[in-house]
């Protein structure tokens, strides 16, 4: 039996007296696009944050390819497990400055290659990040994540603030990461139509519990 990408073993997550995840057991496959789907507040984004270790479980274990995430060096782990957030978070400065935060000292060739994987031309390196449109900014954030050469992509409702065209572009890029670069993608969404378009595997998250859909 192949080792799962992420395993959740009896994972409980509580915050400020509220139980967000309630004894979750799930094995996310190491390949393709895995969608975590559920209504707002169901705990699906929290699962992604646990994968990137922006959260730590109150109880239970989260494993990455068999290793307890709590035993891994957090900074190295986060570079292996890249994350794109719900809303674009451009840092001050140009696109180049943004990418250099993720990979200090990288030359323009490396940065341009990352932009290309996010369907942005190299000339964007000199653009001011705050001036980008929503779709461009989100793709720049994807490039910023890809420039660290992650083994996995975690995408937390990355199209929720985008229009239909930008959404379509980002979905294609996720598929490209899987098909052309062999990077598994875990994608959180509340949009069932989107899940039908992109998911190879889906998990339903509701009221802090998870089941395979």
């Amino acid at each position, binding site marked *: 039996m192949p080792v799962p990408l992420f395993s959740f073993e009896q994972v409980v997550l509580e915050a*400020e007296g509220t139980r967000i995840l309630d004894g979750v057991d799930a094995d996310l496959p190491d390949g393709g696009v895995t969608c975590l789907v559920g209504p707002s507040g169901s705990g699906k984004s929290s699962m992604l944050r646990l994968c990137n*270790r*922006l959260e730590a479980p109150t109880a239970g274990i989260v494993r990455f390819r068999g290793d307890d995430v709590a035993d891994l060096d957090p*900074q190295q782990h986060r*570079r292996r497990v890249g994350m794109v*957030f719900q809303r674009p978070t451009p*840092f*001050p400065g140009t696109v180049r400055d943004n990418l250099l*935060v993720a990979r200090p000292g990288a030359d323009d060739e490396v940065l341009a290659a990352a932009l290309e994987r996010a369907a942005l031309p190299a000339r964007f390196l000199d653009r001011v990040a705050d001036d980008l449109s929503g779709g461009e900014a989100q793709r720049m954030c994807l490039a910023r994540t890809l420039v*660290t050469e992650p083994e996995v992509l975690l995408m937390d409702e990355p199209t929720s603030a985008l229009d239909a065209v930008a959404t379509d572009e980002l979905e294609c890029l996720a598929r490209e990461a899987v098909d052309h670069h062999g990077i598994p993608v875990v994608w959180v969404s509340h949009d069932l139509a989107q899940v039908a378009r992109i998911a190879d595997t889906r998990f339903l998250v509701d009221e802090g519990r998870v089941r395979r859909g």
Partner: protein
Amino acid sequence: MGDGAIGWGGLVASMLLVLVAVGLSAWRRLGLERTILWACGRAMAQLLLVGYALAALVEDDAPVPLAWAWVAGMVVFAAVTVRRRTPEVPAAFRLALVATGSSAALSLAVVFGFGVYDAVPRAIVPIAGMMVGNSISGTVTASRRVIAELSDHRAEVEARLALGLPWPEASRRFVRAALRTALMSQVESTKAVGLVFLPGAMTGLILAGADPVDAVLVQAAVMFLILGCVATNATIVGLGLTRRLFTADHRLVRLPRTTA
């Protein structure tokens, strides 16, 4: 009156202005009449108490250790005040105690180490009082702003953490902004001094009959000390608090709401 003393009659006359404040509050229905009277009464009682204590402390033959004990008491009281004013800040008392103690020690070391004043009770107590007193607002502002900045920019901080950056790098920009805000009011006061207002020490010396130029020199020295003290204080609190807001595995904790 030439010696600067105003006497009880002068004090009573100055209280007419308190009545003006009370009258304005009543006229505009601000509901602050009792608060104003209580604040003034309390200030008067505190100052008289301190005045009588200081009278014993600043005698020429007063023991120096007693003056340092007084300073230590002021530092502790400042930390208690900071904790009371910032209940949302984790470990506020300890942070304020370390920051105020360190900045007071630094500024007093400069004053007495370089011989600006002799280390006698008459100099130790009032100078330390000015340092510690002025540090309180800087400490409160710095701690509130650090929490507010990290809370307002949580998404950007976490985006940096998610790229594998350590917490000091992920938070640097926001902590810098918080410290700038905390220091700017002191810097602005320093810039405006003499043009917009005449500060307390200088006013007091002039009223007491000192040469205005001598008063200016004293005031300038005090002002620079306060600026250095507030900067040290805010920096220690800002960095110490930021460390507490991140876990050992570089996660930003859930942040309390602030009034900053």
